[in-house]
């Protein structure tokens, strides 16, 4: 089992009232899975995703990836773990404006110490595979929304993660760009990387093997 989410809960206080953004969620996924989590805005999808990525500490429950409970690790360890095992594609534009496409793609690779390795060839291969090699020296300011999103996807792959998490990967994109993004993600899944995406778009969810629905912080059938 690649990912196991067990009794996960996250409570927040709104004014004086306490509420659970994520309420007792459990599910698991294997290496070859492609799961989409659907739900309306405010259903708790992103909070769940952030806990799975180790960015948010749950009120209760645990997240295990490859047998490692993320919440038993300290900040340095969980950051290194996220860098090594997870590829995260945030919602919207998420590229650093002062780096070129190639540099943005290679950025995560250098955040954890790796000896005698270079990410250059692999980054170039990824650009070629995604048929956007022409963007390698371009800065985000000179890219379209779809191009930026594809660069963000390639950036999530640079450390060759076992699990890629995407938050609304096609939001704000036109139909053609959305189709290109989903084709790229499907291709990534077919190459053997597990995929977990959060979306409210049925078309996007249709690419996945399994759909989970969330409402008011709970998984519903």
């Amino acid at each position, binding site marked *: 089992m690649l990912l196991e989410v067990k009794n996960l809960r996250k409570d927040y206080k709104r004014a004086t009232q306490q509420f659970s953004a994520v309420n007792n969620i459990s599910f698991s996924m294997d290496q070859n899975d492609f799961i989409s989590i659907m739900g309306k805005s405010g259903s708790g999808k*992103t909070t769940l995703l*952030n806990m799975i*990525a180790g*960015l*948010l500490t749950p009120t209760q429950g645990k997240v295990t990836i490859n047998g490692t409970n993320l919440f038993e690790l300290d*900040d*340095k360890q969980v*950051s*290194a773990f*996220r*860098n*090594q095992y997870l590829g*995260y594609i*945030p*919602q*919207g*534009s*998420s590229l*650093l*404006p*002062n*780096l070129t496409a*190639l*540099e943005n793609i*290679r*950025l*995560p*690779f*250098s*955040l*954890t110490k790796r000896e005698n390795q*270079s*990410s*250059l060839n692999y980054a170039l291969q990824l650009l070629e595979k995604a048929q956007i090699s022409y963007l390698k020296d371009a800065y985000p300011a000179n890219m379209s929304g779809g191009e930026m999103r594809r660069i963000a996807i390639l*950036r999530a792959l640079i*450390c060759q993660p076992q699990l890629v998490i995407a938050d609304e990967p096609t939001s704000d994109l036109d139909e053609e760009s959305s189709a290109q993004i989903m084709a790229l993600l499907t291709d990534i899944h077919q190459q053997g990387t597990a995929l977990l995406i959060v979306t409210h778009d049925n078309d996007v969810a249709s690419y996945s093997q399994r759909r989970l629905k969330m409402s008011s912080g709970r998984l519903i059938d």
Partner: protein
Amino acid sequence: MQEITIANLAWRNIQRRPFRSCCLIIIIMLFSATLFGGSVLMKNLSLGISGMANRLGADIMVVPYGYEKNLEVALLRGEPSSFYLKADLIDRIKVIKGVEAVSPQLFIASLSAGCCTSKVQLIGFDQQSDFVIKPWLQTQLSQPLTDQQVVVGSKITSNVGDEIKFFNHSFKIAAKMDSTGMGFDTSVFMTIPAAQSLMKAANLIEGDTDHFVNYVSSIFVKVDPDYQPKDVVNQMMPKYAIDYNIDFVMTKGMLSNISKWLNGFSTIVYSLSAIFWLLAIIVIFVIFSSSLNERKREISLLRILGASRSDLVKMLLRESLIISALGGIVGVVIAGVLIYAFSLLICQSIGLPCVNISITDGLIYALLVFLLTLIIGPLSSIYSALSLTKFDTYQTLREGE
């Protein structure tokens, strides 16, 4: 192609905001330049005056009443001056208890006219009794100076063997002095008879011109180590002060006045440095704090990609450290070049002797100033760095949408 690391990301962030970065570097540069330049200049002045008592060799200088300042400026910066007192006082001083040696000097200000090579202080000295000039000769004279020969100070550009002209008299340079850090460096020394003949030629003494041989400008007195210079002065004062219309310049007193001035100068330099230091810290603190919101998104993104909080704190501190280091280096280099080029001019305009500090001391000063400069960045940005890494990472990224 170079990997994009947290370290070079800090550098890229500095490059991304060139105007802001330059302003910060300039503020830090002001501090390091003031502190380094001021410290070196003070050290130069301090070195210049600290050994002056030893260099001068005399503990008391007797001058005509009212000419104490003229002697000081002549000694300190070689500003040409002429003043005279009766020479028979020399024999009277010699017999005073506690006096070890006495030597007269005769001061003549040359002119920057056709008669003279340049306007300098000409000093006639008595070769037999002299204990002030001889120790500074680069090479000992093989035979006593003749009346047609002179010894020149280290900053006089002519060389040994050259001819030099004063009041239409030509002199041959017989020797050159080592650097004394005093007005002697720009003075020309000759025998007392040679100086007296110049006095006659230049009509420097009116009235008693037949007896100009009876005059000297100053009497240098060396006191026996077992006696206090002020006790010797106390013996001379009642006996001769009124009759000869003279005053006394105590080397130590002259130096303590200069030291007082130097202390005031150092207070200004260090106060100014402290103000610039605080100013740099405040400005960087304000600028880094005000860019918190602008940078939250970038920081959140790096967190999501796998940077730890400590990595991000290091990156932000590194940014301010680079800015500090650049400001420090530029400031020290600029101040160093200016001090090297204008030290002499500055000292001359202040009116004090200067001796350049050694390269080793200069490097130590530069290092200390640089270290003090380096502290500015991290000290002023630590609050911003720590608060930037404490927010809800993903929420911040989405807020920026």
